[in-house]
């Protein structure tokens, strides 16, 4: 997730010459302290997602004689009612917390960008159709739709990921569509058209790279939304199967242990909030930086 740094690098060919005035020399803000902290948090979480299962292969080992216990020797944050270590379960659970949102952000970006490019470039009925579709989806509470659809029709975690990817794509669609409309009549597009380049090549080779930074910033915001939504679903018992290492699952299964070992619920709750906040802040900062560039250009 190196997105905030990225927009500065590519942009080059499309924007002709920057004005040399004071405003033009304004650089993309550096990540700053907060941005750096967010990047570090995200890096640690992805490392935990990749390595958690290797470091703690026996996280699911039960100790029924011990049962629920507070923080102590051998179990820094205590155990749940089956005697499983809270810290290990939470670390291993990072994977299911991050994989789904990553798939959703990528899938939603792919679908949304395709529709947005098509609608913005084609205009007319295609634009109207895609616009109505985006209106319809945006007017529905995504979490509720997922609860109903996945709960009744089944399909578990993969189905939840698919439904959420489709439901979060309209923001991408709108963003890309309006960006395409803004680029559509710039000289470089008209030049490409005059050269007789194919529509596909103009869209993907010339327009899309200029829209990509905004799309990536939006993908971060979508990621954060998906993380919250998926953990909400598993808290409700939809999606992730019982007994799996998952933050939302831990929260709902350990809710009754709040008196005996508060860490069993507070740790996954804090992890969800921390992860979602870090990614959301990164997305916000990337968007702000892009807005600033757009204004000062």
């Amino acid at each position: 997730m190196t997105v905030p740094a990225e927009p500065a690098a590519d942009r080059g060919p499309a924007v002709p010459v920057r004005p040399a005035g004071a405003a033009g020399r304004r650089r993309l803000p550096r990540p700053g302290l907060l941005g750096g902290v967010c990047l570090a948090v995200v890096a640690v979480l992805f490392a935990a997602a990749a390595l958690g299962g290797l470091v703690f292969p026996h996280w699911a080992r039960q100790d029924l004689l011990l049962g629920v216990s507070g923080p102590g020797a051998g179990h820094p944050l205590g155990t749940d009612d089956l005697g499983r270590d809270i810290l290990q379960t939470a670390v291993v659970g990072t994977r299911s917390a991050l994989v789904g949102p990553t798939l959703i952000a990528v899938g939603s970006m792919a679908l949304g960008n395709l529709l947005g490019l098509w609608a913005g470039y084609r205009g007319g009925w295609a634009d109207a159709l895609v616009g109505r579709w985006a209106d319809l989806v945006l007017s529905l509470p995504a979490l509720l739709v997922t609860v109903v659809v996945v709960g009744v029709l089944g399909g578990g975690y993969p189905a939840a990921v698919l439904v959420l990817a489709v439901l979060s794509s309209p923001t991408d669609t709108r963003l890309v569509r309006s960006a395409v409309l803004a680029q559509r009549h710039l000289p470089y597009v008209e030049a490409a058209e005059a050269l007789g380049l194919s529509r596909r090549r103009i869209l993907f080779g010339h327009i899309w790279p200029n829209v990509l930074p905004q799309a990536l910033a939006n993908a971060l915001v979508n990621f954060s939304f998906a993380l919250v939504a998926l953990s909400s679903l598993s808290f409700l018992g939809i999606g992730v199967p019982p007994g799996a290492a998952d933050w939302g699952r831990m929260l709902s299964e350990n809710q009754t242990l709040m008196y005996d070992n508060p860490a069993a619920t507070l740790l996954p709750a804090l992890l969800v909030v921390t992860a979602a906040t870090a990614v959301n802040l990164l997305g916000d900062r990337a968007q702000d930086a892009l807005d600033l560039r757009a204004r000062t250009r």
Partner: protein
Amino acid sequence: MTTTSPATGQSPQTSAAPSPGPARRAGHPLAAYAARRLAAAVALLLVVSLAVFALLALAPGDLARTLLGTRSATPQALAAVRSAHHLDDPFLVQYWHWLAAALHGDLGVSVRTGAPVTQAVGDRIGLTLQLALGGFVLALLAGIPFGTLAALRRGRATDRIVQGLGVIGLSAPAFASGLLLVHLFALRADWLPAFGAGDGGTLDRLRHLVLPCVALALSVTGLLLKLTRAAVLRELDADHTAFALARGVPPREVLLRHVLRGALLPIATGAGLVLAYLVAGTVMVEATFALPGLGRLLVDSVTYKDVPVVQAVALLAASAVITVNLVVDLLTPLIDPRIRTGGTR
């Protein structure tokens, strides 16, 4: 953030613009505008209701057995269910029967309890409305003043802190903040009850609703804060604000009568999005605090595959969101006179 441009954002301008033509003859461009919004809302409701009805047909397993639930599936019982639900008719005919019954207040029978769905919904809707209203009012009281404050202190420490807290609120699922609240205020400091809806007394109910309402409000406040800050910033940058200040209008007056008045419309058009957050938040909060409301009913019914109840709650939620969007669309000409005249002045 991009989610702050909801479906309703573009509607007033685009749909009001062409009205001076044929509608001028009728003398009421507003009536034509209202009629168009109403027709769009009804069409949307029909699409959503068709999707909700299709849930039953798409649910895995035999329809009649799904509707029988745990009752014994004798041939007679199956035949009775088939005829009661018109299961042998074509899909659209079934939909028509279902829709007609739903419009008459008959949403079928709960598979799990055998009681009418409307009764199950009616028993629980009160609690959910109390919760949602409480959460909404708290969110308004926090989101709009702090959003305005952040915009007025743009770029300064206050702005950054308020915005940061807003992002945390937006990123914290209602169950996470709810459990944190329970831990702090119910377990650590035994001030408020942790779970349940109370024994029925008004005061007791209020005490039980404090933490759930705060948890619900936290998630919605982040969104309102963002909407408000963006809207107020836009107005602060507008020419009319600068001109009013230059004319010597007291800053207080400029804030109230120019900036906030202008910011009202974009905030109001975000109401649909706010309600969507509120609805989703209510489901989560009811699950967290073991409150027997509609959200809890929905989740329980989903778990037990009680499709008629799921359909009813889903339809109710969708209708609420669509209605609020419609009301906002109809109110926008009253909030913003420019729309009344098609923006030509």
